[in-house]
């Protein structure tokens, strides 16, 4: 397939599937109730999927840094503590980004 065709195929199919996922229970609720096992499993989808999504963005090897003196890992831990207490994206960013800059400066590494 040609480049633009591939891109638009992805956009339309992923967009449609995303929309159907968002609509699923909003449209189906009332006609039939959800099986108990499904309701139980769904509770854990955001925690599992989002953790699997973000960890590879945080735990990346940095030249000149060891696994535990990794600025991104340490800044993310600080941000997680703030997020846990405030539930606020803005405050999480307001702590996490400066924490990363500070740690990169302290360790003298970037990335």
């Amino acid at each position, binding site marked *: 397939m040609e480049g633009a065709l*591939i891109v638009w195929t*992805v*956009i339309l199919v992923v967009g449609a599937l995303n929309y159907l996922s968002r609509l699923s229970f909003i449209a189906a609720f009332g006609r039939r109730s959800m099986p108990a096992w499904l309701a139980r499993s769904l509770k854990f989808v*955001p925690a599992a999927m989002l953790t699997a999504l973000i960890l590879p963005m945080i735990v990346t090897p940095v030249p000149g840094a060891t696994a535990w003196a990794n600025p991104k890992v340490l800044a993310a831990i600080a941000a997680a503590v703030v997020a*846990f207490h405030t539930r606020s*994206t803005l405050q*999480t960013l307001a702590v996490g980004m400066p924490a990363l800059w500070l740690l990169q400066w302290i360790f003298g590494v*970037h990335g």
Partner: protein
Amino acid sequence: MLPACLGLIPFGVVCGVGAAAAGIDFVGALGMSAIVFSGAAQILAVQLLADGAPVAVIVLTCFVAGLRFLMYSAAMAPYFRPLPARWQNGLAFVLTDQAFAASVRRFSATHDSRAGALHFLGGGSALWVMWQLTNALGFLAGNVIPASWSLEFAVPLCFVALVAPVLRDVPTIVAAVTAGGFVLALAALPMKLNLIVAGLIGIVAGTLADLARERWKAR
């Protein structure tokens, strides 16, 4: 939802930068942010497109990463139930991580579903407009942002802001830790397949931990 809009500015910019870096044209990048309207799916799709992954793999990965929308949909369904179907169809389109996080507690506090829905629709639409503007900005102006800002770190931070607050009970922590362990352990898998595998294993682990806890309590 204003704080959610502001918090998404760096995320949207990073998505736009990513689309430009992957060689997608401006119309394609706008189409993606307008139609897909999910930062996680956009980032995954753009990276996999740049890697030359097959369309089927890209679609599957974005779908599995988007399974969390099923949970949001199920959680919001009771509140949207009294509304006409046309409203429900529109509300579903703006059901994002941030709109869900900002609204779910507001809805449980109010009994006026129409007022709640209006707030959700207004906030969700504002998020959509902000998302288009920031994606376009990132696409057009991404190359003037200094690399030393590490702006891409705003993406995991936006998700940390969503995940950390829900880690308040043992089964949810088990789900997150298991998924996290597997995604790193399986990092060698091609085409980000570790994300799908680790996410699904994490969901199963959380479910089993929840069942075990229930048995334990019932004893």
